[in-house]
């Protein structure tokens, strides 16, 4: 059984290019505890924040324009690195290549069909004070799915 975020996380984690970039790991936020991603998760004992990606399903809303029982989902990807934004940009670009206009199959909950994900914008050049001021960028993808 694979949830949507787990399926996306698995897809990203399996990519060799992304694996070489995101040395801190790819995290499914739905599978973490309520605190979400914490500094110790992406430092791995080292003083520096390792480049990492966090995947989050931030919203699922009824969508009346496509079909009855359709929903629009919003998936957010958070990219981190210790300083600078070069690795964040590279990870962001690779995720775009893997996800934009792609269908990511999930099996849980049953009876849902995700048509495809579409890139819906990035926020670049930020810092996350909750993670020691690590460099942060965010990508958003929107997908449409039918529900039984």
């Amino acid at each position, binding site marked *: 059984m694979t949830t949507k975020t787990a399926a996306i996380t698995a897809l990203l984690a399996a990519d060799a290019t992304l694996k070489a970039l995101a040395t801190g790991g790819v995290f499914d936020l739905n599978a973490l505890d309520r*605190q979400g991603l914490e500094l110790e998760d992406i430092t791995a004992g080292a003083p520096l924040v390792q480049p990492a990606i966090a995947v989050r399903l931030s919203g699922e*809303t*009824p969508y009346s324009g496509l079909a009855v029982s359709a929903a629009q989902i*919003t998936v957010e990807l958070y990219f981190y690195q210790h300083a600078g934004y070069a690795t964040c940009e590279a990870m962001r670009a690779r995720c775009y290549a893997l996800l934009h206009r792609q269908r990511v199959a999930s099996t849980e909950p049953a009876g849902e069909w995700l048509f495809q994900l579409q890139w*819906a914008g990035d926020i670049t050049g930020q810092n996350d*004070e909750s993670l020691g001021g690590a460099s942060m960028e*965010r990508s958003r993808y929107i997908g449409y799915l039918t529900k039984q």
Partner: protein
Amino acid sequence: MSQHFKWRVSPSQGYDANRYVRVVEQGVFDLLNNVWAVTLENDAKVNAPWRDRTGNARQTLAGYAVRVPQSGSVQAVFVSDGERLLPWTYDPGRGGIALILRHGMSYGKQLELARQGRFAIVGPTLDWARPQIWASVQRMLK
């Protein structure tokens, strides 16, 4: 036998396309500003997931619509990544109407982005409303 052609109404008065466009734009603006901006602001204030300390962050959440001039841009503290409703925000070369929901405090950006969006309210509220807003605009134009 000669054929006569006579304008019953002057062509310039018969169909004023510019006026039609102005009326449609005003209707969309009123819908966004008087209905959706109020709805978004109220929903954001009610559903903001953080626990208040000063109450400033919650009180200064604001929703409004603005006209974007042909060669202008919109200034807002935090504009959600637009899908269909806000392309003009990102393209100063085109005019339009922007519906904005924004934070009023300097740390609003941290609330939206820190801890992977755990305390976000602007983005999720716009995500929730976007299909409904678009559907209401389409209904109005039918």
